[in-house]
């Protein structure tokens, strides 16, 4: 039977924990707001670069570019995005589980891992997958420079033919409560993407590899317009393709960052609520014990008094 003091200690300890989780929740909420702004302000650029890339693609003679080249898939690279720290619910373990399933399913294609985030790096290395590279402490300070660095690394491996396809596993930020786990193909760039973004998922299997859907221009206007070019269009096009990869990597980094903070916020919110429930429960038990003690004392007094008068 715990004494009153034990209960009080218990309540104090839970309260302390609750204070920590509450603080972490507020921190996560603030970071989430910033990350969300990042996601939103990156969107216009991504949209415009896709449009310019598209209109350039429709006008070049041949859309040959090292990053568009398709070849027999013998080695693949899987880019796995996790956080660097835990206490964010199932965020990291979801990604890791999906990634390691994916790796096992593609075992015949000699997968290598590009780990972004400490959590994924640790687990996947322990599982014995070869690491092609690692980037840690990215989440929380995502900027375009780091996206460029990662994109350059991926492009280099691809152009040196050390890998034949690149996939990415990450959490997409849907809203504060929902993160969607995504597995996407990053390279070779799907020719359908150069046509229209909406057809990205559907168009892949049937589309002829190196031919672009020329009449899928996003708006009627830019389709009719003939552009003047300051530089040869082929040159512009071949510069635009890596930019597009950078902007995709940047988008994925931002999505994952926002999703991580959202997951952390939700996790800390429910931890705070669980602590409150626990405090209520322990308080109730404490009061019961206190009442029992008082009742016992009263009985003793009454009993004592009765025996004294008799």
């Amino acid at each position, binding site marked *: 039977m715990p004494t009153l003091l034990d209960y009080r200690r218990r309540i104090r300890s839970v309260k302390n924990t609750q204070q920590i989780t509450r603080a972490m929740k507020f921190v996560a909420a603030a970071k989430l707001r910033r990350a969300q702004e*990042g996601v939103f*302000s990156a969107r216009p650029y991504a949209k*415009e670069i896709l449009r310019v890339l598209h209109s350039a693609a429709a006008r070049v003679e041949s859309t040959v570019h090292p990053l568009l080249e398709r070849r027999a898939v013998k080695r693949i690279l899987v880019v796995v995005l996790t956080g660097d720290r835990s206490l964010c619910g199932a965020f990291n373990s979801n990604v890791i589980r999906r990634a390691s399933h994916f790796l096992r399913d593609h075992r015949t294609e000699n997968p290598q891992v590009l780990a972004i985030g400490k959590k994924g790096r640790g687990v996947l290395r322990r599982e014995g997958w070869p690491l092609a590279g690692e980037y840690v402490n990215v989440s929380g300070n995502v900027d375009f420079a780091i996206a460029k660095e990662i994109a350059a690394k991926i492009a280099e491996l691809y152009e040196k033919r050390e890998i034949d396809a690149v996939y990415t596993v990450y959490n997409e930020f849907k809203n504060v409560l929902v993160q969607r786990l995504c597995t996407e193909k990053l390279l070779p760039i799907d020719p359908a993407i150069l046509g229209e973004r909406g057809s990205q998922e559907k168009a892949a299997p049937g589309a002829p590899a190196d031919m672009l859907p020329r009449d899928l221009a996003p708006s009627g206007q830019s389709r009719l317009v003939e552009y003047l070019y*300051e530089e040869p269009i082929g040159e512009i096009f071949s510069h635009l393709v890596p930019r597009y990869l950078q902007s995709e990597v*940047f988008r994925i980094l931002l999505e994952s960052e926002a999703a991580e903070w959202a997951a952390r916020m939700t996790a800390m919110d429910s931890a705070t609520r669980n602590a409150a429930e626990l405090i209520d429960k322990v308080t109730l038990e404490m009061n019961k014990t206190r009442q029992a003690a008082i009742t016992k004392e009263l009985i003793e007094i009454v009993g004592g008094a009765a025996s004294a008068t008799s």
Partner: protein
Amino acid sequence: MLPESIELQVVTPERHVLEETVLAIEIPGKEGYLGVLPGHAPLITELGVGILAYRTGSATRYLTIIEGYAEVLPDRVIVLAEISEKAEEIDVDRSRAAQDRAQRALAQHGPGTAEWQAERQAIERAMVRIAAASQAGMARAQTKEP
């Protein structure tokens, strides 16, 4: 019918810098500056490192542009810059310090090495920022005079 104004939009990967209706733009192309007035022929160009100037009514404003692309249409100009700041936002002292630092570092590397290139680009960026800020300052001073 030629349009009378241009919708200028400047975006970088990290933010949406500007969206405004303007009368004339000067774009720092890779091969040199080009002026754009309403009704310009459609054009796509790569951008270098330089100052983008645009005119709205009587005021001229300046932005720094560090690499990217521009798409010009008769009534719309979209600038996709790697980095871009408004002249008002530039911290001149910081840019000066960056330039000095890069200049000193430059001396320590042999010409043509990767570090040397990086420092040279840093100097170029700092100089463009300082120039944009001082032009914006001059423009302000002129408009204040009667």
